[in-house]
């Protein structure tokens, strides 16, 4: 059963951020969400995680309506997310950061073990006892991912988790994410600027432009779609 956003409309004051957007993430599938700056990617992402309530439309999880549920409750139901700009909990160590997610979502049978495992997978175990204030960008990005994984989610929403990394780090992390998604049979939604990474990582891609979906399909088809090329180039090419 999928995580499903149906006919979503969101506006901020007079600005229409999303209009009639429908998107589906199935368990075991890796889905990409792309679009130029200001297309509404992060807004849609936050609608799914519960941080923004849509004016119209519904969010369904396993066929149940969750539109009215808080982000906390959605996290407990297995919808995990990361933040575009890493938001570690200050004053806590790397391990404690992961433990918060593992403990409070109540999904992990053994939170300490889940936190530790998530850090191990993302190569953060060596710095488990380091305060998060001392982490570099790459480590912070991986901690975002590790925290979300520590909660043992069924769906994982990644908001530009590759941004700010150098090409080598990006390729490594993308590979790790792919392995993790397969191993844990996650429903993965990747919001990303870097099209190459999205096309390599995902099996299905949605394209947003000015708050509306303009295309969806397998990555190879999306890469050739004239509407997508126009949205990205502004019709210059």
């Amino acid at each position, binding site marked *: 059963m999928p995580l499903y956003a149906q006919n979503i409309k969101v506006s901020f004051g007079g600005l229409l951020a999303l209009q009639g957007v429908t998107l589906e993430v199935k368990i075991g599938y890796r889905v990409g969400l792309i679009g130029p700056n200001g297309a509404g990617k992060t807004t849609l992402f936050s609608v799914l995680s519960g941080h923004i309530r849509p004016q119209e439309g519904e969010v369904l999880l396993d066929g149940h309506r969750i539109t009215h549920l808080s*982000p906390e409750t959605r996290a407990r139901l297995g919808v995990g997310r990361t933040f575009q700009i890493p938001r570690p909990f200050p004053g*806590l160590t790397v391990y404690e950061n992961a433990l*918060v*997610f593992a403990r409070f979502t109540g999904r992990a049978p053994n939170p300490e073990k889940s936190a530790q495992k998530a850090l191990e997978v993302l190569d953060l175990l060596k710095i488990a006892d380091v305060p998060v204030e001392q982490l570099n960008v790459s480590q912070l990005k991986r901690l975002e991912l590790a*925290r*979300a994984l520590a909660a043992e989610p069924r769906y994982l929403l990644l908001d530009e988790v590759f941004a700010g990394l150098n090409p080598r780090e990006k390729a490594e992390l993308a590979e790790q994410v792919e392995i993790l998604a397969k191993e844990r049979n996650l429903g993965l939604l990747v919001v990303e600027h870097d099209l190459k990474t999205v096309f390599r990582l995902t099996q299905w891609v949605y394209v947003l432009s000015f708050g509306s979906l303009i295309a969806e399909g397998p990555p190879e088809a999306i890469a050739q779609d004239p509407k997508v090329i126009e949205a990205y180039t502004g019709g210059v090419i």
Partner: protein
Amino acid sequence: MKERLPILILFAGLSFLPLFLDDYLRHLLITALVLALLALSWNILGGFAGQISFGHAAFFGLGAYGAGILAKNGFNPWLALFLGSGIALLGGAIALPTLRLRGPYFALAMLAYAEVLRTLAILAENLTGGAAGLFNIPALHLAGIDLSAKLPNFYIALVLLVLGTSVTFYLRYGPLGLGLAALHEEEAAQAGGVPVFRLKALALFASAGLAGLAGAFQALYIRFLEPPYAFSPEWSIYPLVAALLGGKGTVVGPILGTFGLYLGAELVVKQFLERGYHILTGLLVVLVILFLRRGLFGFLEDRYATLRPKH
């Protein structure tokens, strides 16, 4: 837990200290204990839960008037002490809606709350004695023994501080401690399943109750109250500065901060600068914010990393 040892040493030292002091110094220590309890309470909300309050005088004053009025109306002063704390805790419920506010708005709402209560205390003359004040509040006593002298009051205040420290310790290092710390990043905390509003409310009630306990004790100790005193902005500013100085987010930091700030001002600074010594307090805050972001305890901890426990 890295704070256990410093706390034990501190309380062990404090239990013997007044035996060697005169009544004036005992009085200073009692006031320091009351302020330390207030700083602990502020720190639960401001340091642990990240909700900076500019209005803890509200809870201090509620506790003080609660205990004072009840004791004057025939309640056993011990009962009045804890009921006063309970009244402040209930006062926390009125502040609940302000938890929806973020950043400076919460701080300012709390400031306004304290001012409203101060005005109400002046207006409700029949209950509070109004601007003239509440006189002759009965002192604490035990089995017919009057405890109004400095020494017994010192030990009562010390026991209350130990109680407050235990509550604070549980909140910081107990099962909910991590959740409280996560409130500094609210959206991320939500994504981690942390029940944000419930934890903020818990921090608010615990904080209000302890601030009220400090106020209630103060009322029964000095046995006189007037609105500008009970709701004085000093009860809001002092704990904030002490927690920043000592290290907000730690248990022992605000206690150390209070002792440093209050006793430093009373015993040292006032020797040189009888008036206007608050300027130095302000300067100190600026310096702490600039150079000691984790406060005194954080600084000491970094210097003596051996105090750190292994996981």
